């Protein structure tokens, strides 16, 4: 691989990735109300003038879009590796950490438990 090719790959991938990130942030301005994912105290009220039904629907849908993407990312990262099954140890570790979290274990403990269970299973020869 020549140096020029390598520079081209890094430039195009870097600029493209940055473009994807920035365009989402810039396009969001065209949605009438602030997405306000958790609908907390700082929710910006929908402006009646610009708040078309489409805009309102999109605003309400966006937090779920992030949940859908993160769930899809977590599931594929837990179960698969380069288009194949990741084996048993990794999803077992993820499950252990998730259940610990649901049982109110501190976040750090739950994440470390996930890593620990996966590592321990592999040590036992279960991959």
């Amino acid at each position, binding site marked *: 691989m020549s140096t020029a090719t390598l520079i081209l790959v890094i430039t195009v991938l870097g600029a493209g*990735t940055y473009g994807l990130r920035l365009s989402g942030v810039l396009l969001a301005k065209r949605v009438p109300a602030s997405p306000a*994912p958790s609908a907390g105290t700082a929710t910006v009220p929908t402006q009646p003038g610009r708040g078309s039904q489409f805009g309102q629907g999109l605003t309400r849908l966006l937090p779920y879009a*992030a*949940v859908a993407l993160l*769930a*899809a990312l977590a599931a594929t990262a837990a179960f698969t590796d380069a288009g194949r099954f990741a084996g048993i140890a*990794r999803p077992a570790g993820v499950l252990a950490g998730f259940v610990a979290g649901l049982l109110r274990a501190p976040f750090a403990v739950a994440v470390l438990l996930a890593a620990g269970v996966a590592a321990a299973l592999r040590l036992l020869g279960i991959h």
Partner: protein
Amino acid sequence: MANTSGRSAPPWRTLGPGPVRDILTVVAATGFVGISYGAIATATGIPAWAVVAFSVFVFAGGSQFLAVSLVAAGSPIAAVIGGLMLNARHLPFGLTISDAVGRSWWRRLVGSHVMVDEAVAFALAQPDGQRRRAAYWFTGIGIFLVWQTGTLIGVAVGSSVSDPAQYGLDAAFPAALLLLIAPRLRQAAGLRVATVAATVAVATTFVLPAGLPVMLGLLGLAAVGRLPAAPAAAAEDARAPEAVS
């Protein structure tokens, strides 16, 4: 600098000790992934300057692993296309958390570059706008710093720490993502969306190129159910903080 609200409180004070500890845990774990990236990429024979340049200019772990392995295999075009498909999820991410990135131009320009999964997830888990901003910037900048440091260490140690699976670090990332969206999984609509998204993504991973399955997870939105009319929706918004806590 990380605080984007225009007030002087640093993000760790805005967020409080609990979220700060959670964020630092994930930042530290990401540092180890950065070390393994640097070591693996170096082991494929890619020059050190390129390994580091990927981390600085692309700054998206999954696509970096994919790109260096495809470049090493002699497929630079596949490396670009595959990496961009894997990173396509950042566009809807940006739509969702633009309020956490900020409104001024420099915040959008800089904040977009530190948009990583963990920053989006931590921002989403916060109850109000000010804390979302603090969580987004604290996580994004923290991960940027440890990712660069980790890459340098990884390049230095070469192939000696090339297997993150040995320490179960590959299980830490999906577990952290799941725990961060857990409050939304307690709501029926959130659970339906996540279940469909996860099922579609995993099922299609075996036949589609990297990145597309995660984008197809957006099909989970079909399971959100009928969007409530405006008055009912306002009432739901008012209740949401309890449901999220």
